[in-house]
């Protein structure tokens, strides 16, 4: 699984680079616009190790940011699942904040929180939480009558139970979204670093962009891709294990 993810990423990456090189040689572009392989390897030799550690730095924020996002998404999703005024208000709030592109909110965040670790974390979480929220809202707003009826009828229904029932019945969807949101958290962290921080791979990309150095950007994308593949592979493996072990699902279905 993990291994597959990595070599599939390598295929995707090579396809991308091959495409760029095809454009380069077809239209005779210089190394300044699209680097050749020599330059690419040379840049990789010089920068890869550094970028690798930059990505690990980014990843540390990503992991935390993803957790914060999951927490926020469930929090808002659970409150916002009702069609009451408050539910709808929370939803409007969550949606509106999302509609503001983070690039526009960033200055306000910096004014309020400075440009340290917290801002990075906040921005990463804000980018990552919304897609999660949409799924959680969709799931939390759909009753599962054949299970819930008993608890409602006997006055046992609490919001925790309702959430648990709906989450459990949609475990597949939730794990897909949560595992998938890893890349969102990563992208979010990089965006945050890009506009604010002075650490992480997003910051390195910003510098490379300043100098229009596509070779460095491609090397950075490579390190990002490898590490995100590994991270996601691990998440997926863990997700599978949680699903099969902990929740002991309908083992051996005959249909």
């Amino acid at each position, binding site marked *: 699984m993990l291994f597959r993810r990595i070599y599939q990423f390598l295929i995707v990456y090579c396809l991308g680079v091959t495409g760029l090189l095809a454009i380069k040689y077809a239209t005779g572009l210089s190394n300044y616009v699209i680097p050749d392989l020599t330059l690419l390897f040379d840049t990789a030799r010089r920068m890869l190790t550094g970028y690798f550690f930059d990505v690990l730095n980014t990843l540390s924020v990503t992991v935390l940011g993803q957790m914060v996002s999951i927490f926020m998404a469930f929090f808002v999703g659970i409150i916002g699942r009702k069609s009451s005024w408050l539910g709808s208000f929370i939803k409007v709030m969550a949606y509106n904040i999302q509609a503001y592109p983070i690039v526009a909110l960033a200055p306000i965040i910096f004014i309020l929180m400075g440009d340290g670790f917290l801002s990075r974390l906040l921005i990463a979480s804000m980018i990552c939480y919304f897609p999660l929220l949409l799924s959680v809202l969709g799931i939390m707003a759909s009753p599962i009558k054949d299970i819930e009826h008993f608890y409602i009828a006997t006055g046992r229904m609490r919001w925790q139970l309702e959430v648990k029932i709906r989450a459990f019945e949609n475990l597949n969807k939730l794990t897909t979204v949560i595992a998938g949101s890893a890349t969102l958290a990563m992208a979010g962290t990089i965006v945050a670093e890009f506009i604010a921080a002075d650490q992480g791979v997003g*910051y390195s990309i*910003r510098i490379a962009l300043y100098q229009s150095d596509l070779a460095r950007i491609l090397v950075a994308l490579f390190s990002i891709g490898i590490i995100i593949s590994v991270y996601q592979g691990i998440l997926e493996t863990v997700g599978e294990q949680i699903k099969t072990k902990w929740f002991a699902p309908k083992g051996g279905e005959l249909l």
Partner: protein
Amino acid sequence: GDTLNYRLKWLFNTSVAGDIIADTGGFFKKAGLDVSVNEGGAGKNAIKELELGYANFGVASADQVIRALEKGADVVVLAQLFQVNPMQWIYRSDQPEIRELSDLKGRHIGVTFGGNDETIMNTLLAKAGFTSKDVRISSVRFDFTPFLKKEVDVWPVYRNSQGVILEERLAAEGEQVKFFNPADYGVAFVANSVVTSGTMLKKHPETVKAFMTALLSAWEFAVDPANEPQVLAQIKKKDKGTKNNIRQKQLKATRPLIKPDKGTKIGIIDVGAWQQTERIMIQEKQIVAPVDVTSRLVGPKK
């Protein structure tokens, strides 16, 4: 004939006054040229556009030109718009004045990592014999909140655009500012210049000549104080957000950068400064080997 695309380095504002006038003031049209003057910005790169055929002329800073040459781009310099680099540092007047480089000691200085202000500041610090322990350097982004909040003392700005805006904004709150200009300490790092591709120059020398003549006379017109009301009115059309008084002050600040004294011909290329720029970039390891930038300076030289 075909439309010529002219890609600026930055957004439409007063510091590109001549480029705006060349277009809206009919200078290109008079020269029989159909030119589309396009805004630049952080995501734009004129030299790449020259190569991809999206642009025929462009504005690029000297470090961009040198980097592009190192990677084999076919770019030539037609004119050097700024005789004085507008890249300067602003600081509040209630801070000790920076009279010599040693006064930088202990200051909290902003630089854009990867930007040319980093290269310039590193050169200045090297000149002063400082190590990284003698000053505090902070990474700077596009917005100057840390300076406004007094978290960073010495902040990099383009003297004629953000420099003016900041000056005004602080004045409104009763604070005065000063500027620190690297050129005063012997660092003449070249800024924005007009470029085109070598192929363009070879294949259409007449067009290039006509273009440059029109553009430079537009700049002459733009920096002539006598034309101020007209010029400001033209800029306003392209740069609506800025207030009138700011625009006026920006124009005033732009003139000495473009035309430091009456005798200076606009666009004249300061070869010595280019050579220094290349040297600095080698020293600062921005490029690995010399690129012989002087051979690519094809416009009128000092």
